[in-house]
């Protein structure tokens, strides 16, 4: 009686329990997939607002101090920024292809594309480390050690405060993303995904592309304010 009550809750619809990817409280995999993707989109909305606070601050200060921001922006290496943009766009392509491989049940291709995506993410972070160390050397980190010649020193410090906050937070999201992809790679290696069940890959893809979009805005706003 007791066992029957505990497990037989929805015996009419649930596939066999245990290793089935269907959680007990969903009716079918379709409902589960829809819920998961909607959940990720909703999460990304919170991310939009999270970065949104920073972008709003940027908008305010850039319009208050247009020249200071332009001068400070020229201290960033736009070639490295452009290179990193290309790296992230490549990684978005490989991520999209990874999802496609999962949809088609091509496990080897899925693992390959996940690995390439992770590698590109690491390249991005490596370039970021190089850039950060340059800024530290040039005393462009806000705080007591900040040095900036010329009349726009204070606005430049505001610019670099925003630069580090925005790119730092973005880099943190990259680190998390690489971690998620690593987990996915292991799951894929264990053969957890199939054309019927690839929800985690799809959902992780949404996250990865979102992080790419943030960078698509950060690059021109930070590196390319005025190069004339």
């Amino acid at each position, binding site marked *: 009686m007791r066992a029957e009550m505990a497990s037989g809750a929805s015996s009419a619809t649930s596939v066999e329990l245990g290793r089935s990817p269907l959680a007990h409280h969903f009716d079918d995999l379709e409902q589960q997939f829809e819920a998961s993707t909607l959940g990720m989109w909703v999460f990304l909305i919170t991310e939009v607002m999270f970065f949104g606070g920073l972008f709003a601050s940027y908008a305010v200060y850039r319009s208050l101090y247009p020249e200071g921001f332009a001068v400070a922006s020229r201290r960033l290496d736009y070639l490295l920024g452009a290179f990193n943009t290309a790296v992230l766009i490549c990684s978005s392509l490989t991520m999209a292809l990874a999802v496609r491989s999962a949809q088609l049940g091509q496990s080897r291709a899925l693992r390959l594309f996940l690995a390439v995506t992770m590698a590109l993410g690491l390249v991005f972070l490596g370039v970021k480390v190089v850039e950060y160390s340059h800024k530290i050397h040039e005393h462009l980190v806000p705080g007591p050690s900040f040095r900036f010649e010329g009349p726009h020193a204070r606005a430049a410090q505001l610019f670099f405060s925003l630069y580090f906050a925005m790119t730092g937070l973005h880099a943190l999201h990259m680190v998390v993303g690489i971690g998620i992809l690593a987990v996915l790679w292991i799951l894929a290696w264990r053969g957890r995904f199939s054309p019927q069940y690839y929800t985690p890959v799809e959902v992780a893809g949404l996250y990865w592309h979102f992080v790419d*979009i943030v960078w698509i805005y950060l690059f021109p*706003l930070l590196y*390319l304010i005025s190069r004339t």
Partner: protein
Amino acid sequence: MAHSPIVPQRVYWLVFITLLLLTLVTVDVAFYDFGWLNIYLALALATTKALLVVLYFMHLKYSSRLIWGFVGAALFWFLLLVGLTGADIFTREWVPDPPGWGANGSGP
């Protein structure tokens, strides 16, 4: 069909190449001075790229109206945050100084 449709590889590659080209354009326009248009041009290019990513890589084009709604809400609320904050910041200076105020640099 609730699962996302399988998008042909060709589409992904096309989007990818467009994104790279747009990045080149983004870099290039920064070397010309269009005055106040600079920022809007940069934002328009970035938004085009973001749209491509959202529509194709993130499968929004093939998603339900519900998800379109949520994405629209995110955009709307972000503009709300910037817009109403700006409504304060950019109208502060509109107030004329009271007579005798700020004559010798004591004003804000």
